[in-house]
């Protein structure tokens, strides 16, 4: 196997500050000319990626994992040449294709046919190549009938299908993918995964950035874990995922977690969520018996007069797979609208927690219809303890599915006569 990608001490530094402040105004630059300010002394910098080094061989499928803001997207942006590293080097041997979103370059006014050409050439194909693959692309997208309709009239599903179809036929030697699979309906997602598996089996090299652990586990043989801009694990994909989930959410035995400056808060979100505390049967704890009562008490501080403020509680397993969501939006609309003042204390009760023993994670969201709202992925962890739910003295072991269902069994058999024949 020959090496197709060498990354050596790659690093990227950004200037701190809001998005709007990043570009200079002419006035500032003019002032700089006349007034001698010590450069960079007052400016704050942040390393989004630091000292990343690894090599990828031909045909390897590598999953790049890490929480939001860890630097995975920065790495992908550098490798796809969208942005320039501050230090270090990367050498790529072969043709690179990068998919950082579905539908790059699509224009709503243009027809599907025109967009195939546009998106194809933007992604790096020659016009001739697009021509050759045109029929295949259309067939893959399953939208033959609408190929001459402007894409603004497409449903979002059709749009995604066409966009992915173009990307899937890019056929580069090295493919860089950033979570594009998180879109589209389930059937199409599976089709995309199959196509990616094909790409991988076809001997091409794939770097796949994702939060979707089952997909990473499925597709990749190797995993690179990035935390706070540094590569902290590089090895088998199972090991990488274990490291990721172990270091990610675990908040110990504390039943309550301060959310004010929580590291799991998505970058740029307001700190509305302040505190979360778990309890079971009026006792504060994060160790809940299977099938027992769970109360999630949340404190938040925000302008509740905003449109569409809704609380969300999402329970995930250790592969960050969502198991269940509870939201005021569906369970009690209008409840949040009755909050008086800026401070809210709200409790979500689950009378019988339908989870089997194991470690679980709680993500909290305070959504708003006006802007993105607050979002904390993996705000805290909790344990579900073995408990004699069925009164039988036995409970199912791990690996039988995460969900606990309470129910009964009944056997129907004839009242008399031989039930079994034994010879």
């Amino acid at each position, binding site marked *: 196997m020959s090496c197709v990608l060498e990354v050596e001490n790659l690093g990227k530094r950004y200037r701190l500050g809001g998005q709007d402040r990043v570009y200079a105004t002419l006035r500032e630059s003019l002032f700089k000319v006349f007034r001698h300010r010590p450069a960079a002394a007052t400016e704050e910098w942040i390393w989004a990626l630091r000292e990343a080094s690894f090599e990828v061989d031909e045909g390897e499928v590598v999953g790049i994992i890490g929480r939001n803001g860890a630097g995975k997207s920065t790495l992908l942006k550098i490798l796809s040449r969208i942005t320039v590293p501050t230090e270090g080097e990367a050498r*790529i041997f072969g043709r690179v294709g990068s998919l950082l979103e579905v539908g790059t370059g699509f224009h709503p006014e243009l027809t599907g046919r025109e967009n195939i050409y546009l998106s194809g050439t933007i992604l790096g194909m020659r016009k001739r190549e697009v021509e050759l693959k045109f029929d295949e692309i259309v067939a893959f997208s399953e939208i033959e009938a609408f190929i001459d309709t402007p894409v603004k009239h497409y449903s979002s599903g059709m749009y995604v299908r066409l966009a992915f179809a173009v990307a899937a036929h890019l056929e580069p030697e090295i493919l860089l993918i950033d979570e594009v699979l998180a879109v589209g309906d389930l059937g199409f997602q599976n089709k995309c995964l199959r196509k990616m598996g094909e790409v991988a089996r076809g001997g091409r090299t794939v770097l796949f950035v994702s939060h979707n652990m089952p997909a990473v586990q499925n597709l990749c043989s190797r995993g690179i874990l990035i935390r706070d801009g540094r590569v902290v694990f590089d090895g088998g994909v199972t090991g990488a995922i274990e490291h990721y989930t172990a270091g990610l959410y675990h908040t110990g035995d504390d039943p309550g977690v301060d959310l004010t400056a929580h590291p799991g808060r998505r970058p740029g979100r307001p700190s509305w969520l302040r505190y979360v505390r778990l309890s079971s049967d009026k006792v504060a704890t994060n160790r809940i018996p299977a099938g027992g009562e769970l109360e999630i008490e949340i404190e938040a501080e925000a302008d509740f007069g905003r449109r569409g403020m809704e609380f969300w509680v999402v329970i995930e397993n250790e592969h960050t797979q969502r198991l269940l969501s509870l939201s005021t939006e569906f369970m009690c609309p209008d409840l949040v609208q009755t909050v008086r003042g800026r401070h809210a204390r709200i409790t979500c009760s689950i009378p019988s927690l339908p989870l089997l023993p194991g470690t679980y994670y709680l993500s909290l969201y305070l959504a708003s219809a006006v802007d993105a709202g607050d979002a904390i992925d993996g705000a805290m962890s909790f344990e579900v303890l073995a408990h004699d739910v069925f009164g039988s003295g036995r409970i199912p072991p791990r690996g039988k599915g995460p969900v606990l269902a309470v129910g009964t069994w009944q056997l129907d058999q004839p009242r008399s006569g031989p039930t079994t024949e034994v010879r």
Partner: protein
Amino acid sequence: MSETTRPRLTVLISPSRRSLGLVWREIWSYRDLWWTLAARDVRVRYKQTVLGAAWAILQPLLAMVVFTVVFGRFLGVEDRLPDPGVSYSVWVYSGLLPWTFFASTAGGAATSLVSNSALMTKVYFPRILIPLSVLGYTTVDLAMAALILVVMILAGGAVPGLSLLLVPVAFVGLVLCGAGFGVALAGLTVKYRDFRYAVPFLIQILLFLTPVIYPTSVVPEKYHWIAYLNPLTGLVSGFRAGVLNTPIDVVPLILSLMMSGVIFGFGYLYLWRVESHFADIV
């Protein structure tokens, strides 16, 4: 013995800038993208407008009518034209065409990078292709508006001669000059948003500093050298002399062509210097 040969190094990613030669070769390898981007702009421009292609003709035509009335008649520029055989309306229209081409190329290119920011943060290609692709629709617009000029010249009984060869020469200069300014302004607009407001104003001012609505002959002789410092002076006069078959002053045209080449080179170099950080700030 291994059969596999190591593929050649295709991309080296590092903090330092790549050589100009490498950049140039890359732009060439992306020429299909230039074409599709240009075609996109042309299609989008004509798809959503009711009048479609008519806009390309109406704009200089209406400007011609206004200028003919105000400058030609009221201010009497008509009587001061160097070539008495030509009516002011034809004269001003034949100047408005190259001017409009320049103004929409430079102006369109200036905002092109900012308005295509979604593209720049998601995929790599030589950034210069975005401002350069503006040339697609400005050239189509120019061709449309030129149809009216042909009709006007033929209706006026004029016979175009060999001087028509000047038109492609002036056109090359206009492309270099418009695209050169446009590329540089596009880079500046990404970096300093002030330019979004400054560019339309600067272009408007430049119209009055260029012999579009008045002939250079109305400018006192001792100030002519200032007029010649404006690269558009020679290009607009050259284009006009070409289509109207009137005497041409060669020196300003050659000066303008040289300046246009320098401007394009400057724009190209400036963008090459700053483009690597666009995705971070756009």
